[in-house]
């Protein structure tokens, strides 16, 4: 009996450590998601500095007003640059999901508000599947995204596409969560 | 002298620390604890299971009829023994199966045995003056007793005979059985009356072992060559001739090496023999 109790204790301890280990993993995945956000925030912080550098001169009030107009346009552009959010796809699929379509509608609004901004859509895949096939699949995803944007009224001349296949994953982990994050289209806005 | 011994003892004792004896006792007890602990359930002992013994024959390849070619199973001398012994047990069986038959066969036997009984009976005839009815009853009883005795004797004899036969059968069955069940010994074509290994199989195995060829040497496996090998009665290669070449230089040269390595079979043959050997790769065809 004593032996039994002892083994039971050991097994329970083992299961407990497993549980603890299993719980500990999830936050790690979330952490990587957080670290990605600042990249976009940096873009936001850098841009206002450009506006503040405008010389304040009484004689050039007219110019200042013109500058303000430019600044407004730039602000819209900034908003577009920072506000375009990536969309996600299902495995081996380039059909847009409903969530992706909603996001694309928002993206289209931002782009229409900032007519100076051109956008390059990057198609990405998860690491499963062959490299070449994924390059083609990434392109299909970028194409599906761009044609949807165009259908929402963004002029076709402003949208270009490129596929990176599985070459630039957001999360290099080999988990379903990481793969889901990597199957995406990104919006690379340029003035 | 005594005083010096005492001194020594005292010296020795002074070397030990005061608590030494107690510590020694504690140490002893602690050590004693170890074997005690060893027998508690905290130290589970594995049941010593004897590992199974596998008999493996590394010399001969497995064949169909294991008994064939075994000297103790086969020799011609023993064959007549089998034939003589085997018929005997057969009649035993019917005797064993119908026990009712026994009395039938036994009854005639006591009859001649009963013949002496009248003689013995006739002797007392005149002496006792007993009534005829009594005499008759007595005779009947005696006869019955004798018959019973005879029966017993006959049965004992039969039992003895049976035991002998059974022993014979047991001996024979032991002879036929090889020491290891299903021992892969002998040759496929063996009839059970040969001694040693079949000559043809020996030569085949010998040359096969000399032949070394890698699957990675050939682009195709559809190759065949026929070679005539003439061996003397001493087992020496007298001459060889390619009857048919495969046309593949690598394959043919591997055969040449095998032949050159088989110049001496290392064992005499019954007579000078022509071996027509067909070399091919049929057993390697299924591999990629």
């Amino acid at each position, binding site marked *: 009996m004593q032996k039994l109790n002892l083994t039971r204790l050991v097994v329970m301890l083992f299961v407990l450590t497993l549980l603890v280990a299993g719980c500990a993993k999830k936050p790690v995945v979330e952490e990587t998601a957080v670290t990605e956000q600042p990249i976009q925030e940096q873009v936001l912080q850098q841009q206002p500095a450009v506006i503040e550098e405008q010389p304040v001169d009484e004689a050039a009030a007219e110019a200042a007003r013109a500058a303000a107009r430019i600044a407004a346009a730039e602000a819209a552009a900034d908003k577009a640059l920072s506000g375009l959010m990536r969309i996600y796809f299902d495995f081996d699929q380039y059909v847009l999901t409903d969530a992706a379509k909603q996001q694309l509608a928002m993206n289209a609004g931002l782009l229409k508000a900032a007519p100076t901004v051109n956008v390059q859509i990057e198609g990405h895949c998860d690491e499963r599947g062959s490299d070449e096939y994924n390059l083609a699949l990434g392109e299909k995803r970028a194409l599906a995204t761009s044609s949807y944007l165009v259908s929402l009224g963004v002029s076709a001349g402003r949208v270009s596409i490129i596929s990176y296949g599985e070459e630039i994953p957001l999360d290099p982990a080999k988990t379903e969560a990481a793969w889901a994050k990597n199957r995406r289209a990104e919006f690379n806005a340029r003035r | 002298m005594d005083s010096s011994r005492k001194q020594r003892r005292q010296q020795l004792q002074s070397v030990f620390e005061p608590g030494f004896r107690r510590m020694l006792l504690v140490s002893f007890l602690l050590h004693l604890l170890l074997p005690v602990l060893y027998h508690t359930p905290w130290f589970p002992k594995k049941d010593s299971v004897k590992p199974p013994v596998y008999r493996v024959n590394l010399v001969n390849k497995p064949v169909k009829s294991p008994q064939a070619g075994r000297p103790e199973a086969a020799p011609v001398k023993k064959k007549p023994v089998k034939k003589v012994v085997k018929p005997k047990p057969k009649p035993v069986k019917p005797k064993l199966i119908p026990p009712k038959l026994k009395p039938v066969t036994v009854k005639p036997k006591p009859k001649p045995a009963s013949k002496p009984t009248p003689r013995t009976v006739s002797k007392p005839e005149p002496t006792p003056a007993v009534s005829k009815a009594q005499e008759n009853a007595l005779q009947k009883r005696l006869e019955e007793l004798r018959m019973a005795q005879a029966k017993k004797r006959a049965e004992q004899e039969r039992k003895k005979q049976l035991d002998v036969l059974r022993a014979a059968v047991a001996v024979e069955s032991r002879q036929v059985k090889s020491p290891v069940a299903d021992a892969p010994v002998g040759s496929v074509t063996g009839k059970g009356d040969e001694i040693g290994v079949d000559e043809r199989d020996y030569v085949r195995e010998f040359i096969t072992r000399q032949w070394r060829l890698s699957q*990675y040497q050939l682009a195709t496996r559809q190759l065949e060559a026929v070679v005539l090998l003439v061996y003397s009665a001493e087992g020496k290669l007298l001459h060889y001739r390619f009857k048919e070449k495969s046309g593949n230089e*690598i394959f043919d040269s591997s055969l040449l090496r095998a032949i050159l390595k088989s110049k001496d079979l290392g064992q005499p043959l019954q007579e*000078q023999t022509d071996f027509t050997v067909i070399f091919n790769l049929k057993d390697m065809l299924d591999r*990629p």
Partner: protein
Amino acid sequence: MKIVRAILAAAVLYFFYAGSAAAVRIEISAPGEQTIPLAITSLLPMGAVQAGVAEEFQQVLGNDLDLSGLFDLVDPEAFLGDAQKLTLHSTQVDFGQWRMLGAEVLIKGGYRFEAGKLTVELRLYDVISRRLLTGRRYIGTPADVRRIAHTFADQILLSLTGESGPFNSRIAYISKRTGRKELYLMDVDGHQRLRLTDHRSIVLNPDFSPTRKELIFTSYDKGNPDLYRKEIYTGRESRLSLKPGLNIGGRYSPDGREVALTLSKDKNSEIYLLGTDGTIHRRLTNHYGIDVDPSWSPDGHKIAFVSDRRGNPNIFIVDIHTLEVNRLTYEGKYNATPAWSPKKDRIVFARLEGSEFNLFSIRSDGSDERQLTFGPGSKEHPRWSPDGRFLIYSLDRGGEKSIWIMRADGTGARKISTKGGHDTHPAWSARW
């Protein structure tokens, strides 16, 4: 008289064969052993002793011959006196000694350093028939020891199989050693690594020209995945195909005159044939699905490729003359990266099961499918050696990507890339 003589001779012959009374027929349908016992003696100095030469030579040659799977090496511990003698002529070799050790073939050799030049004499003997199978003298610089060993290994295979080995060739591959994917070159045993590109972008999927010391690959150097051509010795680099969209998966035809590749200039990936000047010769596929990963048949008349035209990615074969397309694979849900053997009627491909690829091989008529790799890790990007004996592939296991080499039947797998390289996409050159 002549007739009488002929009859007599026939009679003698008849009696000779009939006279040897017993006649037995034997069929032997497989050799006793499927390896050849080989003794490799170490190189002996023909002049001054140079440390390390014999050891390095032995190591390289032994490794190559072991990979070939042909041999069963005789233990050098057992060698007798003849191993210490420089016998470069078959009459000098004590073959009896070697036969006693069970060797059937024997390698002997010596080296000499003179005026900065390294001379290596090498002999391959048949121990049983006591003759020289092949003899070679190599003259090079002291740095050429490895090269000489590889070349002699090829020579041994030529002598014992009728087909030269692939050991004196190169392997191009993609490595992330610098943090970016760049193109590298190495020997078949993973030594002598050399970086070829400095694009600091993404370089993908190289292929060797079968006739020239030249590579093609895809790079994002100019922003778009374009197909590049690079001359290995001059380092000259140019863009061979720069159509908008994908210019990927370039593969030289067996005669080196055309390149099959995937273009998506019309918003859909299709297989095209390109001239070596970059002009489009022909479009081979026309389907709204994905068509990628071309691989030439050895005769140059057909191309295997991957398509999802029937749903999941599977392998199809297109005849480049009639453009007739036939499906090759039906098993599995995801079959990709076909590689057609340059010698045999076999196509190796990777099949995705779960989240890991394993390599399979199949005949071009879709029969006789066999699994080549097993075990953990994803095996991808199979490519053949120029002689069709070996396969090279990349393995992704535990986050580390490495390059492996194995025999075409899946045996003898070994890693040839070093740790931490993140090496993928190997391609095997023709004989160098």
